[in-house]
Every structure is written in structure tokens, then in C-alpha cells.
């Protein structure tokens, strides 16, 4: 049985198309992916992302546990800030990626991907026991609704809906405020390459807050095309601990790795940084007709050297784009490669995974 977000009935009544993703039934398309995508690039759109997990870590050792289980630093981090990080195993292989919020000196909320909340809750609890740390770990996934309001007009829209003044909130900062009286966490973060907010509110206030943030409703389809144009990794698709094991350096998120801290996987990642990653996440732009898709081989000098992990027709560029991994020596932008689509090699070139410049 798939889990349902608090607004399941509202979405169904609106005529949205719903799919199962990460164990949740979520809207994938409200109007059309192209229209929703364009709204976010040009104006503003709102996504229901209540399938994302929420885990609260609180107590004297909360910062220590967060730091030791993610690649980024939580100890020196100021209250009121958000940070992106990977969650790695002993070998530095990414199990998931996350954003965490420092709510207080001794209190964090972190956001595992859809379907990873129970796994991460267990991982946090087991390591807390193993290391004898003093903090509570609470899986609050079914207590929170989460909406992403994204696009150039999104900051003003959220500012207008909130009862507090938000205009001073910088990127990767958040405030605890209210929308029509409902307590919200309003974070200047996102997954589209555009400016905007991610808004967390209690499950029971989901309807009120969704209604107050009026703009183009967008489904997971547009969320996917937007993040692909921005070269953002999708957990489980662009990396997977068994099917496609990758490190943060291979995934080009070294900015979220703080080797000065002690975390699970740190030593393996320090070695990899020293030696240089063997493969790198790149963009692949097709020069012939066709669309690169997950699992299609990337060919260089007649040999299969990698695989596409995500691909689509870019709605912004009107061109087919792909993301995937190639050996580091092939990763230079401009390198001629090919993508094999249904047995036929289509000419392509390596590009930066950031196809569309964003914030």
C-alpha cells in the first residue's frame, strides 16, 4: 500500500495525474509538464513534496551525530541555516543525500529522500547506540507536509503569504514563521535551479498553507525536468548504493563534503580526493535526434565507457539532454561521445551537468 500525502484528495479532485514514487502516491502532472516547467523558470510554481522524509534529532549530542553521519559539518553550523550533504557508507558510497536544518543549538531536522526515512531513522539510532551519544531521533515524516515554491516570483509570493518579513532570508537560510496562523519552517532552498522556498508545515495545516501559496501547481514530472537541467542528482536514479555505487566526488558534490570532520566514509573520500575520482558525473548533449534515457550506454572511441542515469527533452532548451558518469579522462566538456539508443549510436558531446544556469 502506497503512502498518501495529506492533500491526496485535493490533488485527485484537481484532476492531477498521480504515480507511485518512493512508496508514495504523488501528483506527477497537473496540467502539462511543459507548462509547469515554464511557470517555474519564468514565474512561480508550487510542488507537493510531502513524500520527502523528516527526521528530528535533538539533544546534547545532536550536532555530533549529524556530523558523523553526513558528509557536511553540523557542529560549526549556525542556527537558522540549512546544509546539503551526502550520507555515505564506510567506502564513501552515497546511500542518500539530504538537506538538514539547524533549528537550535541542540536540535536538527533532516530531509531524507522519499522512501528512505525509515532506513535513515534506523541508521541514526544504531549509530547513536554504537557511539553512546545522547540525543533523540524521531521520524516525523507523517507529521509534516512539504511544499516547494520555486521560480523568480516565488520569494515575493512566499513573503506575501507569510505573517513575518522574509525578505532578509538568504539562500540556505530558514525562518520559523506562520502562514495564516499555521506554524511553518520557511527555507530558502530548492531543487529546480530557481530561487524560492521550501515550506514545511504540520500535516493538519496542509490544506491551509497550500491554499495560501497560490501559483501554478506542478507535479513530479516538472520537478524532474527542472532538476535535470540544473544537473542535480536524484537519489536512487543518479546514484544507488548497489546498482550504481557512487561517491560524492564522482557525483560532483564535493562542495558538500567537509573532510575536516570525522564522518562515516571520510577516510575513503580523503583517499579518493588525493588520487582523483576515476569517473565523473557529466552532462551529455545529443547532436542528433533522440532522447537519452536512464540505462543507455555512453560510447567513446568505439567502447562503452559509461551510462546515462537521467535524460529528457529539455523544455527550456528544446534539446535532448542527459546526465551520467564517464571516466575522468572523458569528462572534459566538448569531448565527442555517443549515446546508444535502441542499438544506434547518436553523436553527442560532454557538457557541464548544469545545462541551465540558476541561482
Amino acid at each position: 500500500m502506497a503512502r498518501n500525502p495529506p492533500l491526496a484528495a485535493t490533488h485527485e479532485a484537481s484532476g492531477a495525474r498521480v504515480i507511485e514514487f518512493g512508496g508514495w502516491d504523488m501528483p506527477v502532472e497537473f496540467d502539462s509538464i511543459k507548462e509547469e516547467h515554464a511557470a517555474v523558470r519564468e514565474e512561480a510554481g508550487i510542488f507537493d513534496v510531502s513524500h520527502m522524509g523528516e527526521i528530528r534529532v535533538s539533544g546534547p549530542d545532536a550536532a555530533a551525530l549529524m556530523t558523523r553521519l553526513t558528509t557536511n559539518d553540523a557542529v560549526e553550523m549556525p542556527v537558522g541555516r540549512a546544509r546539503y550533504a551526502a550520507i555515505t557508507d564506510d567506502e564513501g558510497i552515497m546511500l542518500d543525500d539530504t538537506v538538514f536544518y539547524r533549528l537550535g543549538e541542540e536540535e536538527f531536522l533532516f530531509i531524507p529522500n522519499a522512501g528512505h526515512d525509515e532506513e535513515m531513522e534506523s541508521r541514526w539510532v544504531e549509530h547513536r547506540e554504537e557511539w553512546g551519544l545522547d540525543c533523540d531521533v524521531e521520524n516525523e515524516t507523517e507529521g509534516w507536509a512539504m511544499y516547494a515554491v520555486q521560480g523568480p516570483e516565488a520569494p515575493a509570493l512566499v513573503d506575501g503569504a507569510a505573517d513575518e518579513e522574509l525578505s532578509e532570508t538568504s539562500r540556505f537560510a530558514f525562518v520559523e514563521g506562520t502562514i495564516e496562523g499555521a506554524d511553518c519552517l520557511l527555507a530558502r532552498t530548492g531543487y529546480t535551479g530557481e530561487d524560492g522556498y521550501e515550506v514545511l508545515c504540520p500535516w493538519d495545516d496542509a490544506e491551509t498553507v497550500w491554499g495560501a501559496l497560490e501559483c501554478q501547481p506542478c507535479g513530479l514530472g516538472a520537478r524532474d525536468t527542472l532538476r535535470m537541467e540544473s544537473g542535480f542528482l536524484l537519489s536512487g536514479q543518479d546514484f544507488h548504493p548497489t546498482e550504481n555505487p557512487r561517491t560524492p566526488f564522482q557525483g560532483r558534490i564535493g562542495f558538500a563534503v567537509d573532510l575536516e570532520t570525522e564522518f562515516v566514509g571520510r577516510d575513503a573520500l580523503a583517499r579518493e580526493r588525493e588520487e582523483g575520482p576515476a569517473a565523473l558525473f557529466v552532462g551529455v548533449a545529443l547532436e542528433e535526434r533522440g532522447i537519452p534515457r536512464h540505462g543507455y550506454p555512453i560510447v567513446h572511441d568505439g567502447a562503452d565507457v559509461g551510462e546515462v542515469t537521467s535524460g529528457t527533452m529539455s523544455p527550456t532548451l528544446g534539446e535532448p539532454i542527459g546526465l551520467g558518469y564517464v571516466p575522468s579522462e572523458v569528462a572534459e566538456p566538448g569531448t565527442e561521445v555517443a549515446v546508444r539508443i535502441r542499438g544506434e549510436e547518436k553523436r553527442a558531446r560532454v557538457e557541464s551537468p548544469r545545462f541551465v544556469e540558476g541561482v
Partner: protein
Amino acid sequence: MSFEIPDDLRVLESHEWAREDDGTVRVGITDFAQDELGDVVFVELPAEGEEVGQEEAFGVVESIKAVSDLYAPVSGTVSAVNEAVADQPELVNDDPYGEGWMIEIDVDDPDELDALLSPEAYGEQIA
């Protein structure tokens, strides 16, 4: 939601329509199919002169989110290919029974059309 199904055509269960005119069958996908796919962004079609078999894949249609095979409603030889949909795949969404057609087939055996669904039967299938 209700979908348009013109009464002068026959339909394969996998949502390809066939419109017969003097031994030639024009083929496309139904209004229902284009709506299910969403924004069509790529269509791959056979070359003129290729042989196709009934219920065999003859091409591919891709929307932003999905890749789907196209199946031939009848056997025969491809006699025309709609180049316009290769350049403007959105024609499949905008006009699935008109400008968004895919190929024309010189039919081997006109009786094969009898195996296809009537517009009424197809309407029930997608209801």
C-alpha cells in the same frame, strides 16, 4: 474525461488508429493515447518501403516522461511517412487524428482491419 474517437476509423488495443482509403491505411495514435503520454517530444518512424506486420512495433513515440513503442494496426508496406511530426512532435498532441498522423501502409490483406476495435468498442476499452 471524454476523448474524441472519429467514427471512420478502427483502433488497435494498444491505441493506434487506422483509417482505410482505397487499400491504403493511415496510422496514428488516439486522442486518449496522446493525453496519457503528455507532451510528445520525439517520434521515430520507419522509412518508406519498409515492411510492417500487424501488432508489430514500427516506431517509437516519446513524451517528456515516457518511451512507448508504436504498433502497426495492419501488415503491409510503408508507403508514406509524416515528416512533419519528426520536426514538430507536438502535432501528435494538438491534432492526433489529423496533422499528427504517423505513417501510411499499403495493406497486404484488408481483412486484417476486421480484427481491430470499432470506435464504440475502443470507447468502452478506455472508459
